[in-house]
Each structure stands twice: as C-alpha cells, then as structure tokens.
C-alpha cells in the first residue's frame, strides 16, 4: 500500500503515566472503509482523536497523504480529515447556525441551496433550517451534526459510534450517506459496537487495552 492516505507507525499515547494506546500500526488506502471495534475504554475513540489531531501521539507518527500530520496547517488538516463525535453538541440557536458554520470558517458565502440539499440527503426537510436546536430529537441532532461535517466533502471521515442509540430507519439513512461518500472516494474510518455494522465491515481492526488485536 505505497499510496496510503494514512500510514500509522507505532503510535502510542501515554497520559500521566497511563498508557492509553501502544504500538498501533496500520495503513489505510484512499477510499477505503475501515471499521474499528473493541470493548469500551479500549482506546478506539482515542485513536480517532489522534487521527483527527485533537490529541497528539506521545510515540510514533501518523503520516497523512505522504506527510507527517504535524507538517500540515492544523485547520487545513482538520477540514480534510473530519471527525464526528458520538454525542454531538449543536451550537448557536438554529440548525442553520450549525450548517452555516463550515462556510463561515472558510470565509465563504453561506450557500442556502447546498444546506437544503444536505438536509435532504439525510431525509430532513428544508424547513428544518429555521428550527431551534432544542426542539430536535436525538436522531435529528446526529444527522445535522453529520452533515455539518460533510457539507464540504472531506478526504477522510472519522465517525465515532455515530449510530449508537439511533432507531433503525435513521441508522439506514446514515449508512446510505456513508455509502454515498465512499462511492465519491471519501475514506471512512468508523468506530462501532453495532453488530450489523461489524458484520458488514470490509476491513475490521480490533483494539483491546490500547493494543491492536486482529487485523482482518
């Protein structure tokens, strides 16, 4: 895998003498769909946070598109490698505030049509834009948070158990969105406990006690 989008080389993270991750090494090809599983507290989310530069490894290094992570400008990197939290927090007052944020941070004019299309992609109506975030259900919040990450297509999407607690229909919608982005060549690395997602995984990495157990 010479042209790997991610080359994770002996990565480890130790915080206050506690080793959270150790000797993690694997490569991810562009457009690949990788599933990470493992028991709670094993370090799966920590690994995603390292890939997203929201944590910094204390050992080893992460190569992204041929260059070490730290050589990229941090904001530019995070716009290419987009991390979606398990329990996202929406900010501002309305859904529009959240979907306008990616435009604002790129200093681009807010594109209303693009926001409406993004909502439609996750089966949410256009009038959702003006809805107050406090009125949204858990599934609606998760979908708004997801399209907030996707309104500008990233190169890599890091998804941290985003389908946990969603009903079957919403889960299907999210899976459809993931499949569409994979078709567009977006690399997806997802952490999950969901049995159906684990069964459908193209490539599964298991982490136990901060170490890689199996690469299948």
């Amino acid at each position, binding site marked *: 895998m010479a042209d790997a989008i991610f080359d994770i080389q002996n990565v480890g993270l130790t915080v206050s003498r506690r080793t959270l991750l150790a000797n993690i090494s694997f490569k991810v090809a562009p457009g690949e769909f990788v599933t990470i599983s493992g028991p709670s507290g094993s370090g799966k989310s920590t690994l995603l946070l390292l890939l997203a*530069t929201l944590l*910094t490894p204390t050992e080893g290094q992460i190569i992204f598109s041929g260059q070490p992570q730290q050589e990229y400008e941090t*904001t530019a990197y995070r716009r290419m490698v987009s991390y979606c939290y398990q329990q996202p*927090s929406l*900010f501002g007052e309305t859904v529009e505030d959240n979907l306008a944020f*990616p435009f604002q*941070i790129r200093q681009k004019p807010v594109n209303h049509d693009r926001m409406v299309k993004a909502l439609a992609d996750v089966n949410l109506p256009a009038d959702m834009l003006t809805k107050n975030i406090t009125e949204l259900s858990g599934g609606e919040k998760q979908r708004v*948070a997801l399209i907030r990450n996707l309104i500008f297509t990233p190169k890599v999407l890091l998804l941290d158990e985003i389908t946990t607690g969603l009903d079957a229909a919403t889960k299907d919608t999210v899976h459809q969105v993931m499949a569409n982005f994979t078709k567009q060549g977006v690399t997806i690395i997802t952490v999950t406990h969901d049995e159906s997602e684990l069964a459908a995984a193209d490539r599964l990495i298991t982490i136990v006690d901060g170490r890689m157990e199996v690469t299948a």
Partner: protein
Amino acid sequence: MNHLIVTPTALFFAVALVTVAFFISLKEKIGLEKDLVIGVIRAVIQLTIVGYVLTYIISVNRAWLTLLMVAIIVFNAAWNARGRARGIPHAFVISLLAIAVATGVTIGLLVLAKAIAFVPSQIVPVSGMIASNAMVAIGLAYRSLNSQFHDQRQGLLERLALGATRYQTAITVVREAIRTGMSPTIDSAKTVGIVSLPGMMSGLIFAGVDPTKAIMYQIMVTFMLMAATSIGSTISCYLAYPQFFNGNMQLRTPHS
C-alpha cells in the same frame, strides 16, 4: 467648604456598625467573622497609610511621584484580578497590560480634553477609580471565560474538529465574557442617580460643592468607567482566550 467633622472619636464609634455585621454573622452562622475583622483592620491600616502618602504626594507635586503612585495602583489591581483567573496562564501579565492600557488611555484622554489636570490630587484618585473598576470587570470576564470553556467544552471541541481556528472557536465565548465584564458598569450607569448616588458625587456634595457641579464630575466619571471597563475587558479576554488552547490547537485540560 470644609464642614467635614469626622473625628477619630467619631470613627471609633463607627466601629459599632461593624459589630452589628459581626454579630449577625455569628448568630446566623455565616462564618464571615474572621474576614470581617481582617477587612476592618486592613481597611484602617491601608486607608491611613494611603492618606499620609496622598498628603505627601499632593504637597510635593512631582510628575514622577504621581506616575509611580498610579503604577502601584495598577500593579495592585492586576495582582487582584489575577486572583480571579483560576489557573489561566500568564493572568498577571495580561491583567497588568489590560489595566495599564485602560487606565492610561482613559486618563490620557481626560487630561487632553482638560477634564482633569495632571496634578496628583486629581490623577491619583481618578486612576484608582479606573483601575478598580477595570479590575472588577476583568475579574468577571475571567470567571466567565473559565466557566464557558468548562461548560461549553464539547461544542468548542466540535468547532475545532470542523477546522475552525482558535479565534473562530472561541469568539462567542470571548464576546460573552466581555459582555459580562462590562455589564455592571453599564447597569450602574443606567441606575446612577436613581438607585445609587456614587461615591465621587456624594463626596463632592459632602465637601460642600454645588450638586450640579458634582453631577458634571459624576457624568464624566460614568463615561470614563465605561471606556475603562470596555478597554480592560476586551484586552484581557483577547489575550486570555488563547491560553485555553495548547500549541497543537487542542483545548487544554480543564483545571476544575
């Protein structure tokens, strides 16, 4: 003009007023007795010393001595504001800069406008008023920054994850903290004369100055404090918010 007859004996009897507060604290088990006693002792010692110092500075009337006194006031105000910063790195330097600029700019404009003269009897008390108000505003702004960075941590992390800069991540928090710092001054400006008769105006009226003249001074003080607290809060917030991030543009671990 000098009808003031507060003699040392009268002051001694005023201690009776403190004993009222002392016994209320004791009876209601509020637990402020020690602080009350320390407060009374410190107030008496500090004000006595500053009284003699001011008398000397006013009688000598030297610019460098006036500026030294202002510098001491600004230093003490910054030291106290730092106490409210609860773990914000470099809080003393930030507070010192914010209070020095707020005091310097405000006093400078007042002197240039000839609203006050560069004499110790005017510069020193006005500096004290500005520095203490800026100190309170900055302390409130620090508290607001700390609580918002703590309470809104998840939302701020998500902004960072979406590729926002530190400024884009923290701007709503910074605005709210500046608002918090300035709001007591704005609130008191709204109620001045209706609810409160402020210290400077009351002091001038006490000393026999025509109330209409005292009011003009108070209007000047009100405007001056608005400027000072806005300058102090803004500088301190803009210098303090980057301290909540580390060199890798990640949020620092909360202190509380």
